[in-house]
Structures are given as C-alpha cells and as structure tokens.
C-alpha cells in the first residue's frame, strides 16, 4: 500500500515542469544509495584506515593528506578519518596538513590496520581548517566557494556583549555600516544588523539587507542581543553563490553561520571560565557640529523676535504654545513689564550656559560592562555533553539605562546504538533593557514652535535643586496652573529621569532535538527539529507624578469657573503601557549525507527537505488612571467623543489599542549538494535548491523559486608538473550561481483592516499599488579564488575576485501623483558589483619573538545597469545622506548641485544653470537630470579592510588592528540658511552659522551663505545639497589594541588550571588620519543627524581552562 502511494507520489512529480527539481533531488538520492552499495561491495581486507586529529584539542582534522613518495593516496574526511588500500610491501606514508608538522606513518602489511595520527600545530595561530555551512561541515580544502572563517581565538580577540560587534575588522569583505546593535527588535523585520557582505545587492528598503544569521543548523530569527558570545566556537561567513546557495532565497546578502561550542566523545571534561569588565569613557558630546551655542542661538532669537516671527505665538491666548525664556523676556520688555536693562542682564547670564554641560553632568556617565561565563564540555564513549552559563551586566552611557542578560545552554549527544546518535539541546536567554533615560542629547522636546530644547536650558541650580524646562505650554500659563486648581504642569527633566520606569524584557528559549542514523560508514540520515520562542515584553509605567501623566490629566480636567469644582475626564493616576511581542519559529529538516572515498574518487553529497514556519503576534495597550499599588485602572472612559481640553479646543482621550498584529512566514525548501574530488586535485561542486514561501498574493507558481550553483576547484600544487618549491600550496577555485531574496510584498492590491475611530466601522487602510509582475530578486554570483601558502607557511593568503549581478531588484519607483500613489514597488533595477577580497598572512618573525601580520583588503565597485525609477526634483532630498542609484553609477551615488562661489553682494549661494552662474534655485532644482548634477562619488567605501599586527614573546602577546576605508564621499550638514529653521526645525542648527556671510568680503574666506528671513526653501535646499557640502570620506582608524599574557598550567605545577590568559583590550582609539579637513568622522552620520562618537573603551579580563 505504502509502495503504491510512493510510486503515485513520484508519478505526480515527474510530468510537472515545476517539479523538475524534486525529480533531480530524487535522482540524487538514488545515486547516493546505489554508490553506497557499490562501494561497500568493493572494499577489501587490505584496507588501511585511521583518523587524524589535532594533538592539542583532539579535534578531527579534515583534509589531511596521506602520501607516499610524493603521491597522495588518501585524504581525511570531515570526521578526520581516512582509508586507502595498502601495498604488499612495508612502506612509509606521510600525513601532512597545512599549518601542522607532518608525521610519518610506518606501515607493515597485515599489521596496524588502524592508525591514530595526532598532528602538532606548527603555526603561531591555530589555522582553522573546516567551514560550516549550517548543513554540513567541510574541509576548507574541498570547497570551491568563498568562505571566511573566524576561529575561536580571533573571535575572542575583542570583548563585547553582542556577537556581531566582535567581527568588526577581522572578517574579510564584511563591512559595518554603523547602524548596528541598536535596541530590541519588536517586529519581525525590525532587526537591522548594520553589516553587509560584499556590498549590497538589494535596493529597496522593503527587502531585508541583512545577511542571514544561522546558529548551528537553523536560521536565527531572534534578537542578536539574546546570544552569548562566549558560547561561540567559530563563525563562518558565506559570501558567494557556491557557499550561500544552500540557503536559498534568503542568502542574497550572504550568510553568517555561528557554530556553538560542543563536547566530543572520549574527551576529558574541560571547564572554561572567563570574566571581563569594560569601561568606556564619558561620551564626547561636543563633537556634534549640529549645535548652535547659546550666544548664537540668543542672537537668532532676538533677531527673529524683532522681525515678528514669534508674534503669532506671543499673541496666542488659546493653545498657549511654549516659547523660550529669552523670547518671554523680550516680550516682557516690549510690554513694558520689565526694563530693557534688566532683560539684557538676564539674557546675558544665559549666554554662557551650555546644555551639553548639563547633559554631561546629569544624563551621561562612563559606561561599564561586565561579562562572566562558565562552560563545561566533554564526553564518554557513548555520549558527549556541553553546558554553559553566562551573565552580562551593562550600565549604559545614559544614566539609568542598562542591559543585563543571563544565558544558559546545555547540549547532549547520546548513542544508545552504534549507528544512532540522539541529540538534544536547550538554550535559554533572558535579558532586560532599561530605557529610563529620556533626557539624553536631542531627546528633549519643547513643542511647536520650538521642537528642540534651547541650548541654555538648565537641569539643576547650584544647590542641586531640579529646574523646570519649558515644555508644551507658555511658561506663564504653566506658572498659573496650580493656583487655578490644576496639578503642577511644569517639566523637570531630572524628576522625569528619577520617575521613569520603562523596561523591555526579552526571553528566548530554543529547543533542539535530532536523530542521526548511520546506515554504514558512508551514509547517514539526519532528522532535526528546532523550536525557537522569543517573547519581548515592554512595560512603561509613567507614574502619577510624571509629566506625561500630569499633562494628560490636566488637559482633560474641567474646572468650573464659579464653583471651582473639578471634573476629571481622564482619571487621576499613572499611565501604564504594556506591550507584548511573541515570535515562534519551528524548523524541521530531513537530510541524507553521503561521504566516501574510493581510489582517487571522493564524494560528499547531501540531499534533504526543510519546512520552516515563523509566527509573530504582538499587541500594545495603555491603561489610564493606573494605580500601581493595587494594579487597577479606569476602563469606562469615553474614547469616541471630542471632549473639551485645556488650554483650548477639544480632543478625544487616547484610546487603548486593542488590535493584535500578527505575522506568518512559511518556507518549504528542497535541496541537494554534491562535491566530487578526483585525485585530490580536482573538485566539482553542485548545489541546487528550491524555495517556496507564502508571499501574499503572488501567483502560486511564483511562490517557489529555484536557485543553484556550481563550482570547480583545482589543487595545482598537487599536480605532477608542479615544482615551485617556495610555494608548496597553490589552489584555484571558481564558482557560479544564484542567490535570492524574499520580498514580502504583494502582486495584488492589498490593504490592512482597521477600526475607524470616527464611525467605528471596520475599514481597509494602507492600500498599496498592485504589481502583478512582482518576482523574487535574484543575485548572480561569480567567484574566482586562489589560495596559497609558502614553504613553512611563512606567507599565505587568499585572493578572490567576485562579480555579483543583481537582477529583478525591487525598488520604489516614483509615480506621478494622479496615480493615487507617490511610489510603487516593482522589479525594475539591475546592478553589477565586482571586487576583490584579499587576505594575506605573513609570519614575519618566528623565533621566540614572533611577529605576524594579517592584511584584509576588499574592493567593491558597484554599478547600476538598469534603473527604471526616474529622477525627480525630490530625488536628492528624499535620499538625504545615503546616495541614490543612477544608471552607470554606483548604487549609492552622491549627486550634488553644481556650486559656484557666493554672490559677493548678498552672500547668496550660487549654482549653475544652462552653463551660467545662477541664483534661480527653483530652476536648478527643477533641472534634476543626473547630467545636470555633479556626480561626487559613491557613498560607500570602494576600498576597505584592516591591517593587523600580532607580536608575541613567550606568553606575552600584543595585537594592534587598524581599519581603513577609501574611495567614497559623504554629505555633511551645515547651517540652514533660512533663519527661522534655526529655532523651528529639529535640524538646521550647525556651527557653520558662525562662518556665515555677513558683509561684503566674507565670501573670500567662507562658503557659508548669508541667512535670510522669511524662509526661502529652495535657496536652502540648493545649498544643503550643493557640492560645497560633500567631503572625501577616506580615513584610517586605530580600531583596537589587545595585550595578553598566556600561562600554561603545565609550566606551573601548583596551579589548578591547565591554561590561563589575562588580557586587556582597548578599542575605539579613534581616527589617525582622515581626508576631510573639518575633523569629521565619516562613519558617523553627519547629515541631518546628531552623532556622538563611540567612546574609547578599555577592558580587562581573564580566561581560565581547567
């Protein structure tokens, strides 16, 4: 019955075109199975077998060569095992492996049929030899794709709470975009890792630009902050198609495979204990140039006051908009309530104040991070185990903000039968992020017309008493509030800091189970299941004394002018906002693995199928009138009617959101992968994968996309004709194939159901433009690589050249607005990137004093070959700092309006229109074709990498890492040249204000135009996006220095540990060279953003091994 079903199942697959892949995979299985049978039959009694391991760690070494008289006869497989057919006479075989001292193996016919070879490492640093794709572990010698491996030692070179930050500057082709690791992601797509591998192929903001993160075997969907870096054994970065195509549709931006520490069978128990503490300097708040000092700010305020800019607000006796103390004083002079002299004295006293001093004193502190970890692993003949526990406690640079994390993990492999491994694993992480500081730089707001706080605001007086800052309403109105019967309506930043009770608690549990059954030594089946469950709970309690609670109650309080009776339309009490986000991901995988060598042939193959489901649900709700003592709140409020509010008008009470947001991602995948090696000289790899996902609305046959890759490897140094003695290892690789990218978009008109607040009806909102032709993005990859090592490994490295062509890239195309949309999402762009990834290792000194140098160098040239989104007059401004795609130019091209000197008579900025100097700003902006603009260069570095030097003498070691970036430009901020923006906008203030043109002759030494009032938007836009504000981004940075001392327990008899290391690590040492002359750090977003440089940090710690 079952057989019949099977046959019918197969028949149903064959005729359908879209099932060709399934058919191929089945054929593959047949092939594997029959080969396994054949090979078993061929084996003879003359067989010699053995296993190669690392003498120090006991880890099996894959890819070690067994040779006789210069001819290789066998190589070790992924479990370190090798076999060959012995000769009939006594012989000596050499077991060699790069980075290890070769060993001789004496063979006598009929004896010693099983050898255990323990190779001693000869390298200064352990050479990592296996790479993990998440589906299999391969010897680096047998891969044809582009893999970069970061071993345990390199990974632990730096300290850090987050795994990814430890990769900065040590992985080739990996670039940090400076936006990483912020906050807790509470949405499915809210995670932004801030790293890219070999640039980006994706254009749209709707498609994830992140590499896929894989932990052990399955994609990791949770927050990176949940993972403890001390559990990491190694990290493999998969860069090209041959490497990443196994991950299918989500690997378009590369894959980062994190392998955690595990025990091995027959390994004595090993205990690792580590602890470190990191202290960061108080951040430099004075770096940011987007700031106007008090004296300048008061100058602007006084000038605007005279021009009547504030009149509307000053005359306003209804909504009472807030104004700064200086404006209030000037108004009082105008009204004659104080004298001009008195006001001048008080205003002059404010000129010397600087809010940044207040921030530094009250809002910021030196950050302190502590990290402790304990790990145990080992194994007996029948089982292996690992257990770890880690604790982190971080005090953030913002006072009262912090992070703490506890992680526990345990794993076990048990073999009840010879051929059966049962794997179980559990990983638990819980962490708390405190977000109590809302008075950090740029987070204080005043309210229209002054969005940002004035620079002379003070948080406390000389006695330390907390002071109020204007917020929401005119100071005079607030001052009267209490006498009118309201709660105190003033805002004191330091009170708010003390009262805040806002935390995000995240918990994650990963459960794993696996079964591995070996049919014979060559073929095994793997069944794996993993469930990941992450909850993120947010709780923000705004106490009755907090400004938010007082303000809400006051606004909705009606005070009868005659009787003084108060009606509280919003109940007195606190505000509690609770949010919950739940992520649940289930993964199942069935895979067949085959690994066998016979004669000169060797095959490693796998085939399998995978199901993944990711569900998310979240909600947020707010309770008003909340009493934290009894946990009660008021429910029976009138949320639907406009009620009278203070100071003026009507409003509805903010309603608790009862909606549940939910998401569901489903993937089904089939894959197969074959690697064939002939005579250890030639490798051929093939990989195919078919992915399906529940992309909403897309036609069924488009839900599934096939992706594939092929690779070739040639071990030239093993050829008979190869006689280059100084370069004993030389290997070339070539790969070709496709990756994809999922866009959770829709081909049809889609919208979201909501409840209408006006009628209460269920309505559909957010209707998107349909695109029936939506397809998956595809990225074509070509990778060519050469690996080499000189004699004794003195000089080794990898040179790779890659071409990455994005096809059908999804982008937002600007639409004419009579379509009803401003943009529309379509597959309308192609890109072509190419570049080199070069890794060079040099062992300069190898005696007692060792000196190693590692150079990572990546180049990246990307070009848009097709781009259907036309330029419009707002293209420049809509892509503010980042650059825009343009055909024939980089994906992130920085364009600017052509700049000509300032007008000597007026200080107006001048550009070019029709080849002539022009002040027709509207004309210049309307002349938006790329040819009329000046191309300044790419916004992303085209040459970047790191340069690391390691020195050691006996146990002492010093490591210094430099990072560099060249070949890009960035747009910097300057002052707005519309004067009103300096007080009304969140941006526009800049120290360039002081260089502004003020009188004829100024144009000789400044390029900052004169300021005008009333505002002239086009004049300002022209200046902000002109060539005058684009700078060269090249820079060299001293990233970090590590100092350590290693103590071997063997050398000291009375110590209880085997090995010990103490270290100190300094990072963010700063730029040592920059091309721009303005002291700007190009990696900090300078354009319309406030930036605080990462402060210098110093860590101390130790690692012990028992």
């Amino acid at each position, binding site marked *: 019955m*079952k057989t019949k*079903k*099977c*046959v019918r*199942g197969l028949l*149903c*697959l064959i005729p359908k075109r879209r*099932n060709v892949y399934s058919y191929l*995979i*089945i054929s593959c299985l047949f092939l594997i199975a029959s080969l*396994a*049978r054949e090979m078993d*039959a061929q084996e003879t009694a003359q067989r010699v077998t053995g296993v190669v391991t690392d003498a120090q760690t006991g880890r099996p070494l894959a890819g070690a060569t067994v040779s006789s008289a210069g001819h290789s006869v066998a190589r070790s497989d992924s479990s370190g095992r090798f076999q060959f057919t012995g000769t009939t006479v006594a012989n000596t075989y050499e077991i060699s492996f790069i980075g290890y001292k070769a060993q001789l193996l004496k063979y006598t016919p009929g004896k010693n049929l099983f050898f255990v070879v323990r190779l001693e490492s000869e390298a200064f640093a352990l050479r990592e030899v296996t790479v993990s794709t998440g589906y299999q572990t391969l010897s680096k010698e047998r891969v044809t794709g582009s893999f970069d491996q970061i071993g345990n030692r390199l990974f632990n070179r730096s300290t850090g709470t987050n795994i990814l930050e430890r990769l900065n500057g040590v992985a080739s082709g990996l670039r940090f975009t400076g936006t990483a690791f912020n906050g807790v992601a509470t949405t499915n797509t809210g995670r932004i890792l801030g790293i890219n591998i070999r640039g980006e192929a994706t254009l749209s903001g709707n498609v994830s630009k992140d590499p896929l993160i894989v932990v052990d075997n399955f994609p990791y969907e949770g927050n990176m902050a949940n993972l403890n870096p001390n559990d990491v054994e190694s990290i493999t970065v998969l860069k090209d198609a041959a490497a990443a195509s196994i991950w299918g549709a989500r690997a378009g931006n590369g894959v980062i495979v994190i392998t955690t520490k595990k025990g091995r069978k027959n390994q004595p128990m090993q205990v690792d204990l580590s602890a470190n503490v990191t202290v960061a300097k108080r951040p430099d708040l004075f770096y940011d140039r987007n700031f106007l000092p008090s004296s300048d700010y008061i100058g602007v305020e006084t000038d605007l006051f005279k021009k009547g800019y504030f*009149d*509307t*607000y000053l005359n306003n*006796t*209804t*909504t009472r908009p807030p104004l700064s103390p200086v404006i209030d004083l000037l108004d009082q002079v105008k009204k004659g309530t104080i004298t001009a002299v008195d006001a001048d004295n008080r205003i002059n006293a404010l000129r010397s104040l600087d809010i940044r001093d207040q921030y530094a004193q009250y809002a910021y502190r030196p950050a302190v991070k502590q990290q402790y970890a304990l790990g145990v692993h080992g194994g007996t003949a029948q089982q292996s185990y690992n257990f770890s526990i880690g604790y982190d406690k971080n005090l953030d640079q913002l006072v009262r903000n912090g992070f703490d994390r506890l992680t526990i993990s345990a794993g076990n492999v048990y073999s009840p039968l010879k051929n059966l491994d049962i794997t179980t694993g559990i990983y638990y992480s819980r962490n708390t992020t405190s977000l109590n500081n809302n008075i950090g730089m740029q987070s204080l707001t005043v309210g229209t017309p002054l969005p940002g706080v004035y620079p002379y605001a003070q948080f406390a007086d000389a006695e330390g008493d907390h002071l109020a800052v204007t917020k929401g309403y005119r100071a005079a109105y607030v001052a009267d509030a209490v006498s009118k019967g309201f709660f105190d309506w003033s805002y004191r930043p330091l009170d708010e800091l003390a009262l805040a009770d806002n935390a995000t608690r995240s918990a994650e549990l990963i459960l794993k189970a696996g079964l591995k059954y070996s*049919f014979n030594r060559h073929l095994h089946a793997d069944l794996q299941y993993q469930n990941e469950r992450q909850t993120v709970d947010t709780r923000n309690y705004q106490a009755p004394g907090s400004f938010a609670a007082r303000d809400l109650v006051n606004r909705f309080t009606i005070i009868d002018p005659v009787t003084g009776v108060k009606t509280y339309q919003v109940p007195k009490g606190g505000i509690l906002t609770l949010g919950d986000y739940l992520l649940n991901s289930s993964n199942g995988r069935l895979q067949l693995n085959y690994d066998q060598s016979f004669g000169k042939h060797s095959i490693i193959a796998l085939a399998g199928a995978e199901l993944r489901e990711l569900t998310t649900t979240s909600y947020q709700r707010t309770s008003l009138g909340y009493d934290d003592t009894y946990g009660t709140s008021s429910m029976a409020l009138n949320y639907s009617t*406009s009620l*009278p509010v203070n100071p*003026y*008008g*009507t409003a509805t009470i903010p309603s608790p959101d009862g909606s549940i*947001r*939910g*998401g569901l*991602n489903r993937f*089904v995948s089939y894959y197969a992968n074959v690697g064939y090696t002939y005579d250890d000289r030639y490798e051929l790899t093939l990989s195919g994968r078919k992915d399906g996902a*529940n*992309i*909403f609305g897309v036609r*069924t046959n488009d839900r599934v996309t096939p992706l594939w890759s092929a690779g070739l490897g040639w071990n030239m140094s093993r050829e008979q004709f190869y006689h280059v003695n100084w370069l004993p290892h030389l290997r070339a690789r070539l790969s070709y194939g496709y990756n994809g990218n999922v866009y*959770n978009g829709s081909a*049809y*008109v889609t*919208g*979201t159901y*909501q409840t*209408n607040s*006006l009628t209460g009806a269920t*309505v559909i*909102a957010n*209707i998107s*433009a*349909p695109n029936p032709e939506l397809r998956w993005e595809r990225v074509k990859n070509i990778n060519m690589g050469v690996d080499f090592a000189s004699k004794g490994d003195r000089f080794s490295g990898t040179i790779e050249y890659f071409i990455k062509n994005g096809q059908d890239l999804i982008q937002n195309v600007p*639409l*004419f*607005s*009579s379509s*009803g949309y401003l943009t*529309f999402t379509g597959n309308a762009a192609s890109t072509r990137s190419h570049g080199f990834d070069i890794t060079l290792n040099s062992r300069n000194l190898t005696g007692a004093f060792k000196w190693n140098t590692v150079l990572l160098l990546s180049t990246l040239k990307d070009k848009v070959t097709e781009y259907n989104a*036309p330029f419009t007059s707002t293209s420049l401004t809509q892509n503010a700092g980042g650059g825009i795609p343009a055909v024939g130019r980089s994906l992130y091209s920085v364009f600017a309006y052509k700049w000509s000197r300032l007008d000597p008579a007026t200080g107006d900025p001048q550009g070019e229109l029709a080849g002539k100097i022009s002040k027709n700003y*509207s004309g210049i*902006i309307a002349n938006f074709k790329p040819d009329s603009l000046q191309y300044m260069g790419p916004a992303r570095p085209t040459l970047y990498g790191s340069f690391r030097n390691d020195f050691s003498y006996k146990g002492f070691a010093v490591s210094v890492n430099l990072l560099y970036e060249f070949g890009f430009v960035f747009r910097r901020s300057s002052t707005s040249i519309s004067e009103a923006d300096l007080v009304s906008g969140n941006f526009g203030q800049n120290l360039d204000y002081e260089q502004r043109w003020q009188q004829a002759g100024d144009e000789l030494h400044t390029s900052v135009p004169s300021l005008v*009032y009333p505002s*002239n*938007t*086009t004049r300002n836009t022209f200046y902000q996006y002109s060539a005058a504000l684009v700078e060269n981004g090249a820079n060299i940075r001293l990233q970090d220095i590590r100092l350590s001392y290693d103590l071997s327990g063997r050398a000291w008899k009375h110590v209880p540990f085997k090995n010990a290391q103490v270290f100190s690590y300094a990072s963010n040492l700063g730029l040592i060279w920059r091309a721009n002359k303005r002291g700007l750090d190009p990696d900090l977003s300078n354009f319309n953003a406030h930036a605080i440089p990462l402060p210098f940090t110093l860590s101390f710690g130790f690692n012990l091994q028992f």
Partner: protein
Amino acid sequence: MKHIQLTYFRCAVIMLTAGLLLFASCKKQDEWLDRKNTKSDVSPSTLQDFQAVLDNTTSFNGQGSVMGLMGADNLYITETALDAEDQVNRNAYLWAKDIYNGTTAYDWYNDYRVVEFSNIVLEGLAKIKDDSESPDYRNVKGSALFYRAYAFYQLCQLYCKPYIAATAADDPGIPLRQSSDVNQRVQRSTVADAYELIIGDLKAAALLLPEIPLYRTRPSTVAVNALLAKIYLSMRDYDNAQLYADAALQRFPALLDYNTLTITTADPFPTFAKSNPEIIYYANCQGYLPLLNGGSSSSRISPDLFQTYESSDLRKTAYYAQSGTTGYYFFKGSYAASGYLFDGFGTDELYLIRAECAARRGDLSAALNDLNLLLKNRYQKTLFVPVSIADQDALVSRILLERRKELPYMANTRWDDLRRLNQESRFAVTLTRLYHGVTYTLEPNDNRYVLPIPDDEIHLEGLAQNPR
C-alpha cells in the same frame, strides 16, 4: 550476498521516506503556503471588503482639497505671520507663479487617491457576481461613483478654468482616470468632458444609493442631489441647481438653531458623533497650518467680512474667537470639530443655493422664504428681523453676502464663488494683498485662478501646464 540484500533494503527505506515526504509536499505544499503573511492584510475581493475600502474616512472624507481658500478674500494673514509661514503657503496666499516648488501637491494627490481607490472598487465589483438587486452591492457601487465624482469636481475647482459653456469643450480639464492600472497614462481631458463624466456618474449613483446612509460619512441620494446642486451652481446652471437643491431639501430639511448652542466654546457645534442635524454628508479638509482652527493659526477673518455680521448674529460668536490681545478674530466655527475645516454638505448651503437660484429666476418670495428660514436659526431669536427686499438684484447680492457669511471657511467654496461670480461684471472683485511694500493683485478671471499642475505630473506624465 546477504550484505547486499540488506543494503537494498536500507535503500528502499530511504526511497520510501523520501517519496512519502515529496508526495505529501506535492499535494499539500501549495495549500500550506497559501496563507497570508500579515494577519491584518487583505486583498480586497468581497463586497464587504470593498465597503470597508470606501469606509476608510481618512482617505475618503478626511483630505478634501482646500488650497483655493488660501487664495480667497475671506481670510488674511499679517505680514509678520506670512514671514513665518513656509514657502508653499506663502506662494498660495500671494498667488505666486509656482506654488509647490517641486514638493508633493497634496490637494492633487489626495483627491487622486480617492479616484484610484474608487477605481479599485469599481473594477473589483465588476469581477464579483452582479447581484444588482442587493442593497449592499448598490451602495458600494453608488458610493464609489460618488466619491470619484466628488474628487474630480474638487480637482476641477483648483486645476482647470471654471465651467464656461462657450469654451468648456476647449478648456483643458484634468486627467479623468477610470482605471486603477498605474501603468496606464491618461492625459488631460477638456472641462466639458470632466463635468459630463462627473454629472453622469452622480446621476448613476443617485439610482443606486439609499436615501439616508448608515453613517453620514457615506453618500446618499440626498448627498448626490446636494453635490449636483453645488456643481450646477458653479456651472451657473441655476435651473438645475435649484432643482437638485430642492430635491435634497425635500427629503432632508433640518436646520440647527444656533440659539440652542453654547456658542462661546472652542467647538460650539455638535461633533460628528453627536450628529449635527444639518450635516447631509460629512467630510473634512486636509490641513494647511494657517487654516487650521486653533490659536496657532495665522489666518484671520478678513475685517471687511467680519464687520458685516450684525451684533445679533450668533455666527459672530459661534464662528470666531479673538486672537489673543490683538483684537483680530480667527475662525473656529467649523462643523468638523477638533480643528479641521468642514468640507461636506449641509442644509444651510442648500437653502442658500435654492434661494440664490430662485432670486435669479425672479421668484423673490421663495428666495426670501429660504433666506429667512436659515437666518432665523442664526440670529438671536428675540432680535431677528426677517429680510424683506423687493429688488431682484439687491436680493441676489444679499444672498451672496449671506452665502459668504454662512460659509466663510467652507473649503474651496469661496474660491469657486469668486471664479463663478467674476464672470458677471456686477459681482466681479479684484483681490489685493500687501506684503513688504509690494501690492499683489488678482484681477477677475486671472490665469492664476487656475493652480499650476504639480511638477511630477509634468515631468513623469507629460501633462500640459496651466499658464499663470
């Protein structure tokens, strides 16, 4: 041999497992993947979905066009306040040649969004079974036709010349998009075509819609008649305007007596939820800061209009509040509370339309009846003296003044009236603004009574620009 047989057996087990797996997937895979990605997502396909699309008041009732008011003579903005405004508002107020400076023109875009969503609904309806007898189906179809027609009409008010029977067949109109396909290019029609389509769609909608809707944000037969009255009035077709105003008022005659209100409060009128009896159809305008109700607004009621209100006129207090200590007054009396301007239809406007049409046709007693009925509900009861004018021209003038006093901030109504009345030399007005010593003038029938087509339409779609 036994060994080989065992291997074969193992192979069979593998093949069986793999086969079963793939078999299962073959059948179930599509089913398994056929689940939507986001819970709240919907691809509208049922009648209920289409009704929900149209019930989204934010798109359909919340962003009516209002740019005309910025250029009309009911408001004025002081020099210092105008200095503090952003460039687009300043351009609109001073009738500058270019208004949007390359930024998105929301009056244009928001109305075309209504057009697009209505087209989506109309195309979707065509695909489901035509159950034309079902009231729900008829309501959805009628509503979509109504919303699209009203959006087109608002666009015509701003972006093409007023309807002048003699030239309408040649005057450039607006793109009359009747398909949701964004790849389809539609050039500007003529003014005549636009009005023909609008009126045709409204008449079709009248046959489908209920007389009184479930919510006032939905259209109804009464609303269609009200809109037709407004449109015919703007076309100076006074017979038809009167016909449709009358049809609407026959079914929906209620007026709100201002004597029953606390007119000193910030929002004196019953809010939407408390259903103001005058509101036939509810909509509000998208906000330009100077127009918004509230103390921060920088637009004030023009003093020459304000001084026409008699002291016994309740509107003087209900509509206006004093701006701080300056002695100037700003508008607060919108039927859309919470600081928005009302853009729907009320019976007050219909009485004025019917009165004007009657007066123009010489039926003075009917005109006076309507006018006095309205004013009785606007003046203090004890002090109200009914209007009695025997001269036809004087009565038309008086009704036009009452129209201005009743609907001062009613979206583009004043702008549209200026465009209409400028065609009669006796009612034509020249508008002036003084700003930093420069006098800006807008002559009757000036090209600048037609706003510029937004830049993106010129660049991306190649529409013809209006001369200004």
